[in-house]
C-alpha cells in the first residue's frame, strides 16, 4: 500500500472529483479531507433546481458518507483549515489541530463577489453558493413577496426562475447593457430579455444597486438611476472571486487565483490545486466541465505520473435558462477585424444561432432556442478544423441540409436498416405509414426489425420521427416484458409476491399478462426467483434451451458445454470429453471464450446419453443464468500474481452455478491488476491487488463495451466472494428480465448498490445472503437429474417418422 498522506482542503465538487480519480488508481495514498460545509459533497450546479422546486436537497448529493468510508477517506466536515505550513508540511485547523501531509490539494473554490453598496448587512440579503444559502432563501421566500437580484448572469437568471416558482415577484438588475454578456452578444441578449420578461420577471439593464434600505430587514433598494424598488429579499449574484487567502498566506504564487501549471501543480512541488480557486495561463473557471478535466490531470500528477496535461478548457456551456435552451461555446467576444460571423436570427421565435470564425476556423458560437449544432461546433473549435469547404452548412437551422448525425435520412429505400433481420428502410417506412405505427415496438411487431441485437433502435426512431414529424413522441422506457403484459415488470413482481402467484399459469389467470407466449420465460424466471422453494415449474413456459438444457444452433442441432470450473481441467476430464465427442460423432469441438469446451452438432435425442457419458455438471451456456468464471493463474504460479485467483474462481463458480438470472452473468477473477482474465469487463469481475481484492460490477465486452464500476475493495477472498454473492442476489431480485448488469448498474447507480450491499445496520446484506442460499438450495443439476429421468417420455424425442410409400 501507498503510505503517502494526501490532505485535501475543500470538500466541494472539484476536490471530490479529484479524489474520485485518485482512488481509481492502484495504491492510492491515504486521504484526509477538510470541508468547511457541514454537508457531504453535492452537485452545486443543481442548487438552482432546488430553489426552483425541481429537486429536493436529498437528490443532489453526489457522495455519501459511506462512499468516504468505503475508500478509507478521513472526512472532517464543518472544519476550516486556517493555515498551511509548507516547510513542516502541515495544515492547522480552526481549533488549532495540526495535520501532516506528503501531498496537498487545495480546492477551496470561490466566494461571491459583493459589489460596493450600502446596507448589505440587513436581514434578507443573500448570496447563492451553497445548500445553506439555498435553504435560507427558501425559508425567506415563503414569508415574503418581492425580490431584487443583483447580477443578470447565468446564476442570477436561474435564481430569478427559482424565486418566481416560489411565488415571488422578481426584478433583475444588471450592470451591463445586455444579459449574460459572458455567453451572449447584444442581439441574443435582447431575445433572452424578452423571454425572461414574458415570465413576469423585470429586467433593469445598465444600472447597479447603490443602497439597500430598510429598518433591520430589507424593504427597498435604490438604483444608480435614482429609482427605488420595493423589495423583501435581495440576492447578490454578481460574480465570484477565487478563495486564495490560505494559499497566499502560505507563500504560494497567487494572482487572481492560485497559479497552477500544466499538471495542476502550484509553485510548491507537493501542492496542487483544482477548481474555481485556480488560475491557469491567466484564466479562471466558473463552470463544471473544466473541473472534471482538471481533476483527472491533478489525480495523475498526485500519483506521480505526468502523462496527462491540462491545457485549459474551452468554455462551453449548455443549459436551459428560464425554459430556453442555450449553448455558448468558445470565445464569443469578437476581437478584431479578422473575425467573421454567420448568423441566423428569428427573434419572434426566440431563436438565435451565431458562429464566429477566425481564419477559416470556428472559434465560438452562440446558440439560443435551438442548440442541436452545439456538439458539432464544439468539436470544430476543439480540433481547429478548417471549415471553409462547408461554410454554408455550419448551422443546420433553416438550412434544410441534413446533419451527418441523421444517417437514416441519407439512406436509400433499399438500404438495409436492420442488419440482423435484413429489413430495408423502405420496408420500415411503408410499415409505419400503412399500419400507422407510432413506436419502435410497433415497427418490430410488423417488420421484425429491431428484435435481435437492437442496434438499429436509434435508426428506427429517426425514421419514425421523419415520417410522423411532430406527432412522434419517443416512448419512455416502460419495463413490459412483452406487448401483452398489462403492467411494468416491477409491478408484476409485486403482484406475484402479494398475490402468491407461484406458476406461469397462475400469473396468466390473474390477468396480469396476456397469452402471447413471448413473456413465458420472463414470467417463469420471476416466479422462480420470488418463490424458489415452492413454485410450480411449467416446462412449456421455458425456452427450448431450458427444456432440453443445451444451446439450439441454426440447424436445429444443439451444443453441449460441460462445466469446467474456473477454466481448470485435468487430463482425465479431457480424455472423457474426447471419448464422448468421438462416440457421438460430434461435428466440432471448440474451446470457448469462457475457458471451457463446446461440443457442437449434437442431435436432440442424443442429449441425455451424451450427458450420462460425460458425467459432468451442466455449464448452463444456454441459459439466462450464471455462465462461467474465467480465471488467470495468479499466486499459484504466476510471477506477478498477488492473490490465488484460480482458487477463488473455482469456489465462486461452484457457489454460483445453477442460479438463474435476469440475463446471462459472466464472471472472472484475475490474479493481479494486469488482469489477464479481463475482470474489468465482466458482470462481476474480481481483481487481486496488493493486500486484498477489488470487485467490479456491470462490465461488458460484447455488443456493448463497458468498464465495470468498482463495487468494493476488501482484504480477504471470503469478503470478495460475499460481496459478489450479495450483488448477484440483488441483481436477481431487481434486474429487469433481459437487462444485463451493464444496464442494471448504471440504472440503479453504483452508490445505491454499495449502500444496499454493505450497510450492515439495515440488515439487508444478511438478508440477501439468506435469500441467495435459499435459491441455491433449490438448484439441481439438470443433466444429472433429467439425463437419468426425463420429465416427459418425449422430452428429447420427436414424434414418429413415417417413410414407407403412401
Amino acid at each position, binding site marked *: 500500500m501507498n503510505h503517502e498522506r494526501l490532505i485535501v482542503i475543500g470538500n466541494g465538487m472539484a476536490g471530490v472529483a479529484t479524489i474520485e480519480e485518485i482512488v481509481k488508481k492502484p495504491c492510492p495514498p491515504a486521504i484526509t479531507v477538510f470541508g468547511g460545509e457541514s454537508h457531504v459533497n453535492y452537485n452545486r450546479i443543481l442548487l438552482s433546481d432546488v430553489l426552483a422546486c425541481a429537486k429536493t436537497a436529498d437528490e443532489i448529493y453526489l457522495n455519501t458518507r459511506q462512499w468516504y468510508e468505503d475508500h478509507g477517506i478521513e472526512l472532517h466536515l464543518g472544519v476550516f483549515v486556517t493555515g498551511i505550513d509548507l516547510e513542516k508540511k502541515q495544515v492547522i485547523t480552526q481549533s488549532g489541530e495540526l495535520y501532516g501531509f506528503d501531498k496537498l490539494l487545495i480546492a477551496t473554490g470561490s466566494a461571491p463577489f459583493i459589489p460596493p453598496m450600502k446596507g448589505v448587512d440587513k436581514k434578507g440579503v443573500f448570496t447563492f453558493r451553497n445548500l445553506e444559502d439555498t435553504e435560507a432563501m427558501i425559508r425567506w421566500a415563503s414569508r415574503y413577496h418581492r425580490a431584487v437580484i443583483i447580477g443578470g448572469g447565468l446564476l442570477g437568471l436561474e435564481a430569478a426562475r427559482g424565486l418566481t416558482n416560489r411565488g415571488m415577484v422578481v426584478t433583475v438588475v444588471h450592470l451591463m447593457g445586455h444579459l449574460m454578456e459572458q455567453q451572449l452578444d447584444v442581439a441574443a441578449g435582447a431575445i433572452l430579455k424578452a423571454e425572461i420578461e414574458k415570465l413576469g420577471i423585470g429586467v433593469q439593464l445598465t444600472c447597479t444597486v447603490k443602497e439597500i434600505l430598510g429598518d433591520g430587514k430589507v424593504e427597498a433598494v435604490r438604483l444608480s438611476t435614482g429609482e427605488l424598488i420595493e423589495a423583501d429579499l435581495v440576492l447578490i449574484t454578481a460574480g465570484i472571486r477565487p478563495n486564495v487567502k490560505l494559499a497566499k498566506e502560505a507563500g504560494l504564487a497567487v494572482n487572481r487565483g492560485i497559479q497552477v501549471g500544466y499538471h495542476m501543480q502550484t509553485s510548491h512541488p507537493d501542492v496542487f490545486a483544482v477548481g474555481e480557486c485556480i488560475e491557469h495561463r491567466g484564466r479562471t473557471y466558473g463552470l463544471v466541465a473544466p473541473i472534471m478535466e482538471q481533476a483527472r490531470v491533478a489525480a495523475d500528477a498526485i500519483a506521480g505520473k505526468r502523462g496527462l496535461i491540462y491545457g485549459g478548457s474551452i468554455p462551453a456551456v449548455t443549459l436551459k435558462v428560464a425554459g430556453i435552451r442555450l449553448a455558448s461555446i468558445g470565445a464569443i467576444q469578437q476581437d478584431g477585424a479578422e473575425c467573421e460571423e454567420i448568423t441566423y436570427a428569428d427573434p419572434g421565435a426566440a431563436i438565435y444561432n451565431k458562429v464566429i470564425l477566425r481564419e477559416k476556423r470556428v472559434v465560438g458560437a452562440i446558440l439560443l432556442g435551438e442548440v442541436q449544432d452545439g456538439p458539432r461546433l464544439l468539436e470544430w473549435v476543439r480540433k481547429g478544423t478548417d471549415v471553409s469547404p462547408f461554410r454554408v452548412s455550419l448551422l443546420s437551422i433553416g438550412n434544410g441540409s441534413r446533419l451527418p448525425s441523421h444517417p437514416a435520412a441519407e439512406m436509400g429505400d433499399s438500404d438495409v436498416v436492420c442488419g*440482423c433481420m435484413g429489413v430495408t428502410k423502405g420496408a420500415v417506412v411503408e410499415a409505419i405509414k400503412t399500419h400507422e405505427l407510432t413506436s419502435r415496438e410497433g415497427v418490430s411487431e410488423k*417488420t*421484425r426489425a429491431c428484435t435481435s441485437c437492437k442496434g438499429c433502435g436509434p435508426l428506427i426512431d429517426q425514421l419514425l420521427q421523419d415520417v410522423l414529424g411532430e406527432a412522434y413522441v419517443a416512448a419512455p422506457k416502460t419495463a413490459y416484458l412483452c406487448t401483452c403484459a398489462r403492467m411494468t415488470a416491477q409491478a408484476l413482481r409485486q403482484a406475484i409476491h402479494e398475490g402468491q402467484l407461484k406458476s406461469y399459469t397462475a400469473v396468466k389467470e390473474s390477468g396480469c399478462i396476456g397469452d*402471447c*407466449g413471448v413473456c413465458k420465460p420472463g414470467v417463469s424466471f420471476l416466479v422462480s426467483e420470488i418463490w424458489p422453494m415452492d413454485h410450480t415449474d411449467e416446462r412449456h413456459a421455458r425456452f*427450448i434451451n431450458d427444456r432440453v438444457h443445451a444451446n*439450439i444452433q441454426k440447424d436445429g442441432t444443439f451444443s453441449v458445454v460441460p462445466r469446467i470450473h474456473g477454466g481448470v481441467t485435468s487430463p482425465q476430464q479431457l480424455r472423457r470429453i474426447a471419448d464422448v465427442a468421438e462416440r457421438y460423432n460430434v461435428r466440432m469441438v471448440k474451446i470457448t471464450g469462457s475457458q471451457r469446451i463446446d461440443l457442437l452438432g449434437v442431435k436432440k435425442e442424443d442429449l441425455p446419453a451424451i450427458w450420462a457419458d460425460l458425467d459432468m455438471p451442466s455449464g448452463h451456456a444456454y441459459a439466462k443464468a450464471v455462465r462461467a468464471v474465467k480465471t488467470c493463474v495468479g499466486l499459484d504460479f504466476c510471477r506477478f500474481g498477488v492473490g490465488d485467483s484460480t482458487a477463488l474462481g473455482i469456489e465462486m463458480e461452484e457457489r454460483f452455478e445453477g442460479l438463474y438470472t435476469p440475463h446471462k452473468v459472466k464472471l472472472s477473477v484475475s490474479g493481479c491488476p494486469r488482469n489477464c482474465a479481463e475482470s474489468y469487463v465482466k458482470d462481476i469481475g474480481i481483481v487481486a491487488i496488493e493486500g486484498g481484492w477489488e470487485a467490479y460490477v456491470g462490465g461488458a465486452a460484447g455488443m456493448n463495451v463497458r468498464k465495470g464500476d468498482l463495487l468494493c475493495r476488501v482484504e480477504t477472498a471470503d469478503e470478495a466472494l460475499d460481496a459478489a454473492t450479495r450483488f448477484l442476489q440483488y441483481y436477481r431480485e431487481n434486474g429487469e428480465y433481459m437487462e444485463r448488469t451493464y444496464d442494471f448498474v448504471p440504472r440503479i447507480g453504483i452508490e445505491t448498490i454499495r449502500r444496499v450491499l454493505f450497510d450492515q445496520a439495515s440488515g439487508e446484506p444478511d438478508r440477501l445472503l439468506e435469500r441467495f442460499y435459499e435459491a441455491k438450495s433449490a438448484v439441481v443439476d439438470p443433466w444429472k437429474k433429467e439425463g437419468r429421468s426425463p420429465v416427459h417420455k418425449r422430452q428429447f424425442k*420427436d414424434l*414418429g417418422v413415417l417413410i414407407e410409400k*403412401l
Partner: protein
Amino acid sequence: MNRESDQVILIRAGTVDDIPRGEGRCFTVQDRRIAIFHLEDGSIRAVDQDCPHRGGPLSDGLVGKDSVICPLHGWRIDLETGAVVGQEEKRVKTYPVKVEQGEILLELGL
C-alpha cells in the same frame, strides 16, 4: 385448409399425450416435416416444421394462445392460418388434424 387434390389420407401421428401441453413436436412423413402443437385449451394444430425465415424448428418454439414463436429469430407464426404475423404474405402450410380417442390424425393432401 390446404387441399391440393381431392385425395386425402389420414396418418396417425401419435397420441395427444405424446405432446406435452403447451408444446410442439415434429412428425416426419416421407420428405415432409410437420410441427404438431398441443395448445393450452387441449386442441391440436399442425403446420410445416420449417420456419419460412431461415428454416428454424417451429416445433421447438414457445407457444402462445394461437401462435408459435420460432426459437431461432423470434418470428411468430399464426397456427390457424400459417401466416407470419406482421408479414402475412409469408406463410407455412397448415394441415387439418382430427383427434379420435386420444389419437392424432393428420390429414395429408396428395
